[in-house]
């Protein structure tokens, strides 16, 4: 469960105050909002990449406001995937496990699972510049899921994809959520994505975030 209470996010002109948000465990929450409204700032604050200036942030009952990004138990997929340019797909998928010193057997097993689940088996030796947009996003998703995070943060993961690839990727996201049962916070400006994926739909209203009626 994520609980953000009266949070002040961002800096300077982009500062947003009094933001509150509650997402129950296991939910697939989609946060809708126009470009520039602070969606990415919110995700980066929850991920620990930007400071929370005021208020509190609890993830699964633990105070995370001052924790390092590495200790928050999250997986983060930025808008462009942000794959590691010098690493193969295999290297990206086992990166989190290597850093956390999992055994080679555990790494191999998790690599197989992710490669099969995300249809990456034939791409393991490729570098990011050899992948299509949809493939890059699947790798970024696999990299974020490798260490089985309790919370998955997705920053407009489908925005740079063509219509066909977007629909296929929506199915992948739905399947990943069903299989992993982690809590997901997916930000987008597309209502269709929210309708297709969200079990909980949220929107920026004034300075806060509020639950949207199912028809909005």
């Amino acid at each position, binding site marked *: 469960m994520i609980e953000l209470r009266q949070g002040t996010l961002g800096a300077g002109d982009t500062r947003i105050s009094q933001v509150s948000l509650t997402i129950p465990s296991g939910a697939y929450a989609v946060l809708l909002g126009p470009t520039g409204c602070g969606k990415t700032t919110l995700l980066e604050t929850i991920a620990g990449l930007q400071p929370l200036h005021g208020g509190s942030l609890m993830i699964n009952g633990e105070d995370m406001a001052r924790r390092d990004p590495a200790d928050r138990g999250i997986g983060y997929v930025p808008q462009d995937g942000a794959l590691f340019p010098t690493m193969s797909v295999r290297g990206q998928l086992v990166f989190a496990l290597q*850093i956390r010193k999992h055994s080679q057997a555990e790494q191999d097993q998790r690599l197989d699972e992710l490669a099969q689940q995300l249809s990456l088996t034939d791409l393991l030796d490729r570098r990011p510049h050899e992948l299509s947009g949809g493939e890059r996003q699947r790798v970024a998703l696999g990299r974020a899921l490798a260490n089985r995070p309790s919370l998955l943060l997705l920053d407009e993961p489908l925005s740079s994809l063509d219509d066909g690839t977007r629909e296929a990727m929506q199915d992948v996201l739905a399947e990943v959520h069903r299989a992993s049962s982690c809590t997901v916070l997916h930000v987008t400006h597309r209502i269709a994505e929210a309708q297709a994926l969200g079990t909980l739909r949220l929107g920026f209203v004034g300075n806060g975030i509020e639950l949207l009626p199912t028809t909005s």
Partner: protein
Amino acid sequence: MNSRVRGQWFLGGLGFLAGLYALLILGLLVADVGFTSWDECWIALQSDAIRHSIALSFISCTLAALLSLVVAVPAGYLLARFRFRGSRLLDALFDIPIVLPPLVIGLSLLILFQTAAGQFFEEHVMEMTYELPGVVLAQFVVACAFAVRTMRLCFDSIDPRPEQVARTLGCTRAQAFFRVTLPEARGGIIAAGSLAFARALGEFGPILVFSGATRMKTEVLPTTVFLELSVGNLQAALAVSLLMVLAAISVLVLARMFGMRGGLL
């Protein structure tokens, strides 16, 4: 005159001015090569003093380039990624050795090692003034400024987002830097090291003032050119100059191969 013809005249004018400068550079190189022969170069390079100078230049420039990278990689990264109190001042400070007259750098080094701290360093750590370590220091002061500038441009061009993602995957700041950002900066590091080596190789003024021009001791390649010219041995001066031209062109090719075409290269 219609606009198409005017456009052609404009582009022709630009091409003419750029072409003049290109011709001047090519003319310099061709004149140097045409003024001597391989035999005369070979004879000049047999001199013990010149061979010592070649060896000292290679070793001191390599050390200066490596030391420059040790400073330039962290400095370039800090300047590119963080805004802190005094960061702009620090950025400007790193440019000072680039714009200072070389003789002033040499004189400033000489004076620095006459201060109490400088004297203490020379007495308890190592002697610098008119000694071999001083040659490396004089080369390092200027070479490092160019390396810092190159690394800053390199890190500016690297997207910080993958490094941030690495931190969410379990990396500390240091792990994210070493495992994600530094491998991506490999081309920039090679370019910065090459540029630092080339700058160190061409350094003359600071070495002349701070380390002197003692044959078989603190004589580096530019010193050799100066010493040989001062006794009228043009062929030897030219042979050493061509060696430096060759080294400079090699560095330029190496740096451009690794994609640092912007900024200082």
